[in-house]
């Protein structure tokens, strides 16, 4: 198993005071808390931090850990020296109720090899107890169109499994999941009973799938509303036009009013993500110009300049 350098994880010196360790924990915990951080490895970092703090904040555990010596490098293959912890007595028969930084009760193999499973989980001391399994979380990306119609997705999640000898390995866990129509990015699908198995006769936990949308070539999504940048020719914007516009639920005909401006927003009510309160679909006008790359087009732009002598596009800037 890998050696874990708890001092390095917490970014403190080996001779740091307990106050310094507490301060480092608080700072890093705010940074990596999974409810705060958007970084994909936040949960892992936060767990690691919780484990490091559980050891270093406790004088007995810290002393035992220090006893391993300072020659170990993070990630190095680690075997606990025989009888290394002889002479240490740990108070209590487990951690009891989790305290600050100890919400994760799945500490690493490294931790358990040093402090035993009794420390890693308060439930080990009560073998007969029943407890509901942990909830699991995973992120799933779907296409925006799936939210309009509903869909079925086959997803494979990696989850740790403990075998009969106590070894933990990652195993693929494949599920067929119905994606309900009208789901939005950031929402969660709860699959009852698909989390970790319960302890004793406890029920299994639930699996939460956090939905995200794959980036789309044309559409942007804000909550229930969907946006499309629609390129229009100058004469379509100036004179008005009836245009075919793609939406995730099919092509619709849209009337552009005369005198439309670049950045102008047109709303197609109820054509956003469906639901009890369906979202809206917004078309944002972008005026695109034909290039003046041949003589005829060039002459036409010159003629326009001639015709629009009083047009002052920068009048608002005072120039």
């Amino acid at each position, binding site marked *: 198993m890998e050696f874990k350098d708890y001092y390095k994880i917490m970014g403190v010196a080996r001779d740091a005071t307990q106050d310094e360790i507490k301060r480092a924990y608080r700072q890093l*915990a705010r940074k990596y*808390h999974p409810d705060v951080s958007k970084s994909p490895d936040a949960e892992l970092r936060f767990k690691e931090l919780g484990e490091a703090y559980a050891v270093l904040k406790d004088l007995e555990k810290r002393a035992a850990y220090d006893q391993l010596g300072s020659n170990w490098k993070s990630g190095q293959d680690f075997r606990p020296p025989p009888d290394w912890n002889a002479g240490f007595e740990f108070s209590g028969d487990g951690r009891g109720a989790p305290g600050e930084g100890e*919400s994760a009760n799945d500490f690493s193999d490294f931790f358990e090899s040093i402090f035993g499973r009794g420390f890693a989980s308060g439930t080990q001391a009560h073998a007969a107890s029943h407890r509901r399994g942990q909830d699991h979380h995973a992120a799933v990306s779907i296409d925006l169109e799936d939210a309009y119609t509903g869909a079925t997705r086959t997803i494979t999640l990696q989850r740790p499994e403990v075998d009969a000898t106590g070894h933990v390995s990652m195993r693929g866990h494949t599920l*067929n999941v119905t994606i309900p129509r*009208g789901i939005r990015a950031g*929402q969660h699908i709860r699959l009852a009973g698909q989390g970790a198995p319960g302890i004793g006769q406890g029920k299994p936990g639930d699996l939460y799938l956090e939905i995200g949308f794959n980036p789309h070539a044309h559409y*942007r*999504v*804000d909550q229930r509303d969907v946006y499309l940048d629609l390129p229009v020719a100058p004469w379509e914007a100036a004179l008005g036009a009836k245009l075919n516009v793609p939406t995730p639920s099919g092509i619709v005909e849209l009337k552009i009013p005369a005198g439309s401006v670049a950045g102008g927003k047109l709303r197609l009510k109820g054509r956003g993500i469906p639901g009890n309160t369906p979202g809206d679909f917004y078309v944002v006008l972008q005026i695109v110009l034909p290039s003046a790359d041949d003589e005829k087009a060039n002459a036409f732009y010159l003629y326009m300049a001639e015709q629009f002598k009083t047009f002052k596009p920068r009048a608002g800037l005072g120039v």
Partner: protein
Amino acid sequence: MENEKGLPQLSGIIFEELNELTLADLSHACAVQADCIVELVEEGVIVPIGREPHRWRFSGVHLHRASVALRLQRDLGLNLAGAALALQLLDEVETLRARLKVLGYD
């Protein structure tokens, strides 16, 4: 989308669209005493429908906010007001991020 053979088709609920949760449901789901939830309501972290506690009805969004507030308190040593402030700022960050995305910045 082809289905993996032999696997049952799982359907879940959209968690955020859960509704009609009672105070007891919420405390049970968060594994805390009802008092803790009452405090969250008094602090304005979650605003249920209904006047008196026994008529309160919560949604999945409330449940999520409540569990985040409780985790922040426990993991970061925050008091209730601090957790409430953190949640409010997180909401603002979320709104601003969404706005940036709509404008095409990711």
